[in-house]
């Protein structure tokens, strides 16, 4: 089908974008960035926004830069920007590893990092990255600018802490210490499909023992989540098979899996265990 009619706005600055969004938000106005999720749901008429505020013409939102100990990703930075590491060290490699699982190449050319975060699909790879690493989301509106921690941002399936008149202008990811090890594992039925389950882990090893473990799963529950019990199970242990199996089991016990027409909660629980163990194995491979 064709999308329903809408009024089109093409601001040229962040201020103009935020002002326009403020005017149309109460009249079902939406931000259009890469459009790779929004336009399909408009074609299905699942969304019929009365206004689209297209931010692709806002040069300042294309910024991708390191500020202090953070990588700042502007709202118009596309997935494809991460095909090659954007910063030295583990974070750049992590993003380049994960990005290859997002849709297909033409989707990655248009779709944006921040768009995925704002859309908040439970199976979104970037939402998992933001949760696992503790990203800060910067929301701007005519009322001002606020920063929302990843742990407070995701509120369920395609639901976030953003207000209707707020633009997610950038996401700030912490740079990782150079000796950080990471592992990512995603399972989907076909290349480019949404994940049925995935895990992202990161930790350091000091004197043969795991320190600062981060273990998060996505696609399993309504929103990505760090699993504290699994992190506690891994901390202080040697990064070996037995420790990984203990942590993976802790994830399986902790999750409250989504069910749908083709996958049961039990299936997703098993998957959570497997993707976690494989992600941990990749971190030391």
């Amino acid at each position, binding site marked *: 089908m064709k999308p329903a*009619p809408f009024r089109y706005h093409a601001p040229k600055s962040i201020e103009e974008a935020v002002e326009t969004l403020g005017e149309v938000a109460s009249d079902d106005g939406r931000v259009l960035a890469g459009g790779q999720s929004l336009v399909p749901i408009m074609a299905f008429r699942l969304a019929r926004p009365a206004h689209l505020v297209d931010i692709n013409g806002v040069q300042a939102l294309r910024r991708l830069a390191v500020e202090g100990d953070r990588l700042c990703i502007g709202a118009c930075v596309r997935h494809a920007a991460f095909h090659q590491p954007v910063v030295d060290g583990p974070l750049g490699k992590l993003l380049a590893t994960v990005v290859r699982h997002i849709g297909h190449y033409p989707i990655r*050319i248009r779709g944006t990092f921040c768009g995925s975060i704002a859309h908040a699909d439970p199976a979104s790879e970037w939402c998992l990255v933001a949760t696992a690493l503790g990203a800060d989301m910067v929301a701007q509106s005519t009322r001002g600018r606020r920063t929302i921690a990843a742990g407070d941002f995701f509120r369920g399936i395609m639901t976030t802490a953003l207000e209707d008149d707020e633009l997610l202008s950038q996401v700030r990811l912490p740079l990782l210490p150079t000796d950080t090890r990471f592992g990512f594992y995603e399972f989907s039925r076909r290349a480019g499909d949404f994940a049925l389950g995935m895990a992202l882990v990161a930790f350091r090893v000091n004197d043969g023992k795991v320190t600062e473990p981060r273990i998060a799963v996505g696609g399993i529950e309504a929103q990505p989540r760090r699993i504290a019990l699994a992190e506690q199970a891994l901390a202080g242990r040697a990064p070996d098979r037995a420790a990984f199996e203990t942590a993976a089991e802790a994830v399986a016990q902790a999750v409250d899996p989504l069910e749908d027409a083709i996958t049961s909660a039990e299936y997703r629980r098993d998957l959570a265990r497997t993707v976690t163990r494989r992600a941990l194995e990749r971190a030391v491979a």
Partner: protein
Amino acid sequence: MSEKREITLTINGCTHAIRVDPRRTLVDAIRDDCGQTGTHIGCEHGICGACTVLLDGEPVRSCLMFAVQAEGCQIRTVEGLANGDELHPLQQAFIDHHGLQCGFCTPGFLMLAAGVLERDPNISDDDLLDLLASNLCRCTGYQNIVKAVRAAAVKMGAGR
């Protein structure tokens, strides 16, 4: 509620001044307003890739963009591949390797591969398979498409 806009699209180097609703997708504008019907419309929600065109050199789904967003961009479609009577190496390879049957998906596959191979003809086999997984074909079983694109990549790499 929405008012038509005057825009100019640049397709294969030719400009087309058209008047469209904001909701007009790029693929509909290319076909119906600009008369370039080589680009096909399949699923209209970004899954099949039949509508793939090059936007400033990169392959994109033209059903997932609005025409008003493509103003000022260089659009390249299947009509822009051949050089006069001389087929693009990808077009010739699809003929030589029987890379199409009904032909519906072919313009999309050609533009997808052209966008990437013209920049990187030395793409690895794994990356090529990953790339070609972007689009759907219901006839060929893909093997001959893969063969055709590999053959074209060799030719395009040698021509440098």
